């Protein structure tokens, strides 16, 4: 696929019916869903890298396979978002973004290195996604194809987040002091990056009238929800095992 993400063929047959939606919002909606298409599709590489790292650190093959399944789900989320772009009159096509290098965390023991990334990906990013996409879904009118599509994505995000917390629950009690300290050193870094990354994708603007019907949410409200998710879910969740 080279330097582009071309999902036109896959997206066209599954584009939801958006007849009756406010046409005045279509340009904003197309741009928004295109950005989501890019973010979702590109993020399959994150889970593939996590799976590779888990393999190298001798994690159970079942866990690795789950991670690879998540990568596949992110690809299909890209297709779903591309389907919305198509339904809005656009083309499910974009330049492929340049991703940062996946960190190996050589300064940490292998198992802690994996957990660092797992915490950032699943316990932080995907947990925030559960809250934000969940709120968007709650605000969206039901009984239509766009709602069904968002529900499918939301369900997968729940699975991705739960995976992280579950693996952490299983492994945290057996961490060595060196492993635990390596993770604790990383948590402020991960949190700072999470906040910066999320804010970059949550513009400080209100939603347009009827925007919720097309998934156009208030960035201001989403920022509040982001802070609340970090303060009341992520940090308390991590503090069961780590100082942070």
């Amino acid at each position: 696929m080279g330097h582009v993400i071309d999902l036109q063929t896959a997206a066209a047959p599954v584009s939801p019916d958006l007849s009756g939606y406010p046409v005045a919002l279509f340009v904003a909606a197309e741009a928004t869903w295109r950005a989501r298409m890019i973010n979702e599709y590109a993020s399959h590489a994150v889970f593939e890298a996590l799976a590779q790292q888990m393999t190298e650190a001798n994690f159970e093959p079942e866990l690795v396979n789950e991670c690879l399944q998540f990568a596949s789900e992110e690809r299909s989320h890209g297709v779903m978002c591309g389907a919305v772009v198509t339904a809005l009159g656009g083309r499910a096509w974009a330049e492929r973004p340049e991703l940062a290098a996946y960190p190996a965390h050589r300064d940490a023991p292998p198992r802690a290195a994996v957990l660092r990334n797992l915490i950032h990906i699943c316990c932080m990013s995907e947990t925030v996604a559960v809250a934000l996409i969940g709120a968007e879904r709650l605000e969206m009118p039901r009984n239509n194809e766009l709602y069904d599509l968002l529900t499918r994505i939301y369900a997968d995000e729940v699975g991705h987040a739960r995976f992280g917390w579950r693996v952490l629950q299983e492994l945290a009690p057996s961490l060595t002091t060196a492993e635990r300290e390596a993770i604790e050193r990383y948590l402020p870094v991960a949190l700072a990056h999470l906040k910066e990354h999320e804010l970059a994708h949550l513009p400080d603007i209100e939603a347009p009238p009827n925007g919720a019907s097309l998934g156009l949410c208030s960035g201001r409200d989403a920022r509040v929800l982001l802070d609340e998710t970090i303060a009341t879910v992520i940090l308390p969740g991590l503090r069961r095992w780590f100082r942070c």
Partner: protein
Amino acid sequence: MDANVRRRALRAAAKVAFGAAFLGACGSNANDSALRRHPVNNAGDSGAETDSRAETNSPTVPNHRTDAGLTGQTPIITLVEREAPAVGDSGLRRDAQAASGLACVEHVELTADRTSSVPEPAALSCCVAYNDQRLVESAVDGGNGPASYPALAADESFVNCCRLIINAASSLPETWTALRTSCCASDVHGFDPEGPSPQYQHIYCTPWGPAVPPSMDYVAQGVA
């Protein structure tokens, strides 16, 4: 987003984070595969979060749409081949003018089915050129400053060309640059029946897909 929505969204996230601990304490990890099949049921409270994983496993979405018209490439506007007089005192000459007096094309409607909205190349190039020139002409401070967006918004031809460019942008990606520079960036929204408003062109919330985790160097780079 009202407080109730936020509270329910937070509760779903909390169930994801703390549900794992609860299950682990009960020795139920062996059932995680079953849990994975129904994460939404388990994540949410009653009501909104009652969908089953079973119906979300498929990567495809049922398509109930009738695709009539989607594949057509019928131009929806026509170029009026008529030499136009100079435009006011701007010095700009239109290459073509519609019978309505608009530059380049007759009135264009923003259409939802923009895949089929391939404009005539001459109309598109006329509009791109027209808008580019108007951006330059409207610039304040002797042409060195930013464009005067109120002046552009009052220019019906400029706004009409924006609509044509917006329609074309979906089928002709190369016109995105023109769209962004002449229509989006200028805060001019010919497609907004309520009048100019930035809310119709923003990209909204897109925090989807986990980012690549940072390395420890991220702190050393001064971001905190």
